[in-house]
């Protein structure tokens, strides 16, 4: 078979090019450790995500020093959780699944991008060095509202990041001869202990308690005050832990037959 010398030369150049392209990608995969979304995750029943430990409550979890896992559910036409919050200088593994059709989870302006297929879980690990706010879009057509499907990923500065959750249950109405109680629970989602102060205010009364909430646990405490000390009427209360605050109003009534019913909650 006769092939012109120039064409042989080009054939050689073309082969070199092809091998170079494969070599570059291999370097990225092996040298830089860029791995592909793959089949390492077990399949999942898309109709029963609420029975799944990871996806019944879409959230971010702290799993190790600077290591976080985000369990994300994509559905028409939203992401949960939204926004996803992680600290800077962290390594985050995203687990994303769909409960209906095929979506994508694409963090705009980054190389975090995956298809989200019902029945499969996409897992991707990425490192966030700097704080920043990213948009998340669905780039796979998923139905008539596809263009409205968006979310946010917030990478917050490390010192502003915590996973504290404050929840307070207070009485709405208390008889004057009874006690007003506030059940305070402080959840620490981080693995490290949380040293903080619970500050509470009811009417004129103030309370303060220094606490250490152990990693991945919830601290519960009850604050009580005699209703008589407050006196009849409405009294605002508030509880703060770091930057979190919960507040409400309690009504102290003369007797129970005075069913004043101005519930605030």
């Amino acid at each position: 078979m006769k092939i012109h010398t120039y064409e042989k030369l080009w054939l050689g150049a073309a082969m070199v090019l092809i091998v170079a392209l494969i070599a570059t990608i291999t370097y990225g995969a092996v040298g830089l450790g860029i791995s592909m979304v793959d089949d390492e995750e077990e399949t999942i029943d898309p109709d029963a995500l609420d029975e799944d430990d990871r996806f019944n409550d879409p959230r971010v979890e702290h799993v190790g020093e600077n290591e976080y896992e985000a369990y994300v559910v994509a559905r028409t036409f939203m992401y949960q959780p939204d926004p996803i919050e992680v600290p800077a200088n962290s390594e985050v593994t995203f687990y994303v699944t769909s409960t209906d059709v095929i979506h994508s989870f694409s963090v705009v302006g980054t190389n975090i991008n995956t298809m989200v297929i019902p029945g499969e879980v996409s897992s991707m690990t990425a490192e966030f060095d700097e704080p920043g706010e990213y948009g998340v879009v669905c780039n796979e057509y998923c139905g008539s509202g596809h263009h409205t499907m968006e979310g946010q990923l917030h990478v917050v500065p490390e010192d502003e990041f915590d996973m504290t959750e404050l929840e307070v249950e207070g009485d709405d109405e208390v008889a004057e001869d009874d006690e007003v109680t506030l059940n305070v629970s402080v959840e620490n989602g981080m693995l490290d202990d949380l040293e903080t102060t619970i500050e509470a205010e009811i009417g004129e009364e103030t309370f303060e308690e220094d606490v250490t909430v152990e990693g991945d646990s919830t601290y519960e405490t009850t604050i009580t005050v005699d209703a008589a000390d407050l006196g009849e009427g409405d009294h605002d209360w508030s509880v703060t832990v770091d930057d979190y605050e919960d507040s409400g109003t309690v009504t102290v009534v003369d007797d129970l037959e005075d069913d004043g019913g101005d519930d605030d909650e």
Partner: protein
Amino acid sequence: MTMSESGGTYIDNFPAEARVVRSALYSSFLALALGGLFGIIQTLHRTDIYRFIESDMYYTVLTAHGVFLVVTFTIFFLVGVFTWAVTTSLDRGVEDIRFTWLWYGLMTIGTVMAAAAILAGFTDSIDMSADVLFTFYAPLQAHWLFYLGLVVFVVGTWLAGADWFRSWWAWKQENPDERIPLPTFMVLTTMLMWYIATIGIAVSILVFLLPWSLGIIDSVNPTLTRTLFWFWGHPVVYFWLLPAYMMWYVMLPKISGGKLFSDPLARVVFILFLLLSTPVGIHHQYLDPGIAEGFKFIAMTNTMFLLLPSLLTAFTVVASMEHGARQRGGTGYFGWLKALPWRDPVFAGMALAGLMFAAGGFSGMINAGMNINYLVHNTLWVPGHFHLTVGTASALTFMAATYWLLPQLTGKALWNRSVALVQVVLWFLGMTFMSNSMHRAGLLGIPRRTAEPQYQGFEFEAGVGSVAELDFQLALGGALLAISIVLFLANVVGTAFNGRSDDLPANEFAETLSGPEDSPQVLDNLKLWTAIAVVLVILAYSFPLMSIVDRGGLYGPDISPFPVSIETLSLLAFTLEQYTTAAIATTGEFVQTTLTGVIR
């Protein structure tokens, strides 16, 4: 190469066949008109320059744009031009013209069915829609008529292929010792590729999607139908492209005033497409969960080697053009380019299409890269890429070829050559603006297939310039393309209304500098190449498909009728690794032996 002895036009020699080919081409142009109309609506809508439809209807428009252009326009043109190529190069009519009309009829019926399902999406009064886009990924579900229409259409193409094989067998009985004429060789290898590729979509529709849309089965495995789609979905891009390649090889050298540089290499190129087009589809699924990275890597190496036939084509075709230019008096390293017949719309269109394909080839290399896919996957970059390939390399070549074919098929001179030249240049300009801005926008992360890529919570950040500029560029390009389509259609209609002309060139292909006699006989052994192609497909697809079925069930996550235990699976994985390594080695070895064989 065999040529028509009589030296007349095609319609003089094959009046009955000319009618079929003409019908196929007109069907194709009707689809182009509709697809183009939907194209400009989309362009103006997504750039927010002019919106007159609701955004949820955008997806009906997009489905119609995709299906009409990449299925109807391209494939109707293909069957027309392939019929022309086979009959001309074998210098014999089809064996039974009724059979030819049968497959044309099936393709038309299939198109009408699918089109009805899609277009019904525009009105609420008919309870039918198929807003599933060209890819129809389950669990999105179309009306069963859409799937059935696709099946009927594909069966039509199968019969078309059978028609051409029949012609070739009949010809071979009479010419046992002759080499297959190059155009027929190209048609046959392309169709062999098509037969292998359509297995994927046939299984996907007949076994899963059609019964599912009819309510016979409850669920499907989305990864499985998606993988079967891409089993067909990648080779189909070569089904769009190879008719254009054929025209570049068999017509362009002649139009340039020269001869085809190498017939043997053209055969090698088409064989490589037959072998490598199908075992690469998983590169569309780089970012799919549920598919092992190893399978993705194999698909990538195959894809990268698939660059070879295109790179070879670039050399052979340009060298053939240069031969023409030098015979016309061209000189120098680059000066010969001036001696090319740029004022001929047939030449200018094909040459500009080839040039844009060189750019599309580059973005294709990026798409083929495995991990770099995180950057571009499903962004506007991807439509930017394929508007250069199917949207220009194929479409513009088809339009330019039409300026040659129409007079051959009608016996009438082209209505207006200047309009034709302006038309092809407008396409080039329009696509420059449109695809450039799409590529750029894709790099910013702007998604494809989205009615309103303007979001509430964040904005896309352009490094240089602004998103508004890119939108403007995109809309400008789209508008130029729309004008170009109007000019093209005007020329087609104008030509149809022309009177018969006696002054038309004969229906002939380019001659060759290095002919088939320079190539080993084994290149014409279609059985051998088909067998190797099938083996490669089995190697590339059997294990991914098994793994997908094992993970997600044949009919979706609920039912698991594929009882493979975990132990067998890990054993499978191990065997698979062995096989895939072997597959890569075989492929490499094969390519090497073919190439050395070819070079000697």
